[in-house]
C-alpha cells in the first residue's frame, strides 16, 4: 500500500483507538440483518402455509398410530434437530410427543463414524430404531448432506414419513427423485438467515401438529 493512499484507509495500520464509530456501525448492521431475518421469516411462513399444514396432518397421523419422531442434522443443524426433539417432548403447551435427536448420543455417533463412516451415522441408527409409523426429519441448509440423504433413503425403505428442512433451492433434498416426501425450503443463500427461518418453520409445524392432534 503506497503511503500516499493511506488516508483512504485510516485504520490500516491498526492505530484506530476510538470504538464509538465501530459500535455505531455494528448496531446498524445488526438492525439491518435482524429486519432482513424478520422479513424472510414472514415470507417463508406465508409461502409454506399450505405445505406446513399438509405436513402437520401427515405427522399427526403417524403420531396417532404410535409413531415417533427422529431428527438429525450436522453442526448448527444438529442443534436444530436437538431443539425440535426438545420441543416435541417437553412442549410449552399441548401434548408431549415422542421425539429424539440422532446426533445427541456421542457414544453412538463416534462408534458409527469411526466404524462404518460418517455418511452412515444417521441411517444406521434408523436401521436399528425405525418402524413404519415413525417420522424422519432432517435439517440441512444446503439440502445436500450425504448422511442426511442416506438417512432419508433408509427411512423411506422402512415406510417412515420423511420430512426435510433445507435452504438455498432445496438442493438434493428437493430435487427430482428425492426420498424426502415433504421438503420445506427457506429461499435464502445465507446459512444464518436460513437457520433462523427454519426455527420459525419448526415452531409453526409443531403448533400445527398440536392443532391436528387436539
Amino acid at each position, binding site marked *: 500500500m503506497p503511503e500516499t493512499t493511506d488516508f483512504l484507509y485510516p485504520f490500516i495500520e491498526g492505530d484506530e483507538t476510538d470504538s464509538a464509530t*465501530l459500535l455505531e456501525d455494528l448496531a446498524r448492521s445488526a438492525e439491518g440483518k435482524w429486519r432482513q431475518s424478520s422479513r424472510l421469516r414472514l415470507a417463508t411462513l406465508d409461502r409454506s402455509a399450505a405445505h406446513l399444514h399438509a405436513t402437520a396432518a401427515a405427522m399427526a397421523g403417524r403420531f396417532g398410530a404410535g409413531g415417533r419422531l427422529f431428527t438429525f442434522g450436522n453442526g448448527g443443524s444438529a442443534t436444530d434437530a436437538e431443539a425440535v426433539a426438545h420441543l416435541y417432548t417437553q412442549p410449552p403447551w399441548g401434548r408431549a410427543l415422542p421425539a429424539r435427536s440422532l446426533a445427541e448420543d456421542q457414544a453412538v455417533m463416534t462408534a458409527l463414524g469411526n466404524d462404518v463412516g460418517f455418511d452412515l451415522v444417521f441411517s444406521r441408527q434408523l436401521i436399528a430404531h425405525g418402524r413404519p409409523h415413525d417420522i424422519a426429519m432432517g435439517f440441512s441448509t444446503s439440502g445436500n448432506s450425504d448422511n442426511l440423504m442416506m438417512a432419508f433413503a433408509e427411512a423411506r425403505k422402512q415406510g417412515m414419513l420423511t420430512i426435510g428442512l433445507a435452504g438455498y433451492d432445496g438442493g438434493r433434498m428437493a430435487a427430482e427423485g428425492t426420498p424426502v416426501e415433504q421438503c420445506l425450503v427457506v429461499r435464502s443463500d445465507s446459512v444464518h438467515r436460513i437457520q433462523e427461518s427454519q426455527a420459525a418453520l419448526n*415452531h409453526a409445524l409443531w403448533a*400445527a401438529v398440536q392443532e391436528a392432534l387436539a
Partner: protein
Amino acid sequence: MADIAQVIGTEEPAAGPGGRPREAAGPGGRPREAAGPGGRPQEPGDEIAGVADDLARASLALARRFSAGATMWCASPNWPFHAHHVAVEFVHPVIMGKRALPAVTVPPAADMVASLRASVVPGDIVLVLADADDPRVVDTMRRGAAWGVETVWIGAGPRRPEPGSANHVIWLGTDAPLEASELFVRIYHLLWELTHVCFEHPGLMKPEPACTDEVCITCSDEGRPAEVVSVEGDEALVRTPDGHERIDVSLIDLPAPGDLVLIHAGFAITAS
C-alpha cells in the same frame, strides 16, 4: 435501550383456547399482533431496537477477549441446544476463511459453577442463555469478577437479571417461549457476525488500559472480589483474577469455600 423491548413485551400473556399462548397457535405460526408504544402496530423486527447497542458492545468485548487468547464457555441449562449452537458457530464458522475461535459447551448435566470454576482462566468469556431467575446462572455470574471472566447473559422475559449481574445483558422483552427461542438464534448469529467484523479493526483489538500498581483504583483503593478456596483458622486461600492469595479473614464472619469476599490490603473486608 432495553426498556423499549420491555415496553413492547409487557403485554399480558395472551392465552388462546385451553390456556395456550396465542403466539404459537396462529395458522402458519404467524406472530401475534402486538402494539408498540403509543398503540402503533409493531413492525416485524422491532425487537432489535432493544438489543442492537448491547449486541454491538458485547461483540466488541468478545473480539477483544478472543484476540487476547480467551476461550468462550457457553451454557444454557434449560436449552442445551442453544449453547451447542453458539459453540459450533464460533468453532466452525459457516463462512470459509473466518477464524475458528475456541468456544466450548458446558455439559448440560454438569454442576455449572463447579465445572466452570475448574475450567475458566482469567480473560475467558462465560456466555449463558437463561432466564433471569435461574439460580445456577445467578450463582455462576456473580463469580465472574473473582474469576476474571467477561460474562454475557442472553435471555427474555419481563424480568431482567439484577443490574450489574453480568458484564453484558442482551435481553428481549417477549414472554412467549417460542418467539424468544427464535430470536435467541438471531442474537447469537449476529454476535458471531459482529465479532468477526471487529477483527477487521486491529487497532481496537488491543487490550483495554491495564491497571498499574501505583494508580489503579480497582486494586489499591477499593475491595477486590475474590472466591474462597479454603480456610485455616483466620487465614484463607482465595482466588482472584491475579491468581491465588492468602488473606486474613478475622474481620468477617468465618467464610466457607466457594464464598465470595472483597479483599483489601490482605484482609477480607466484607463477604459479598
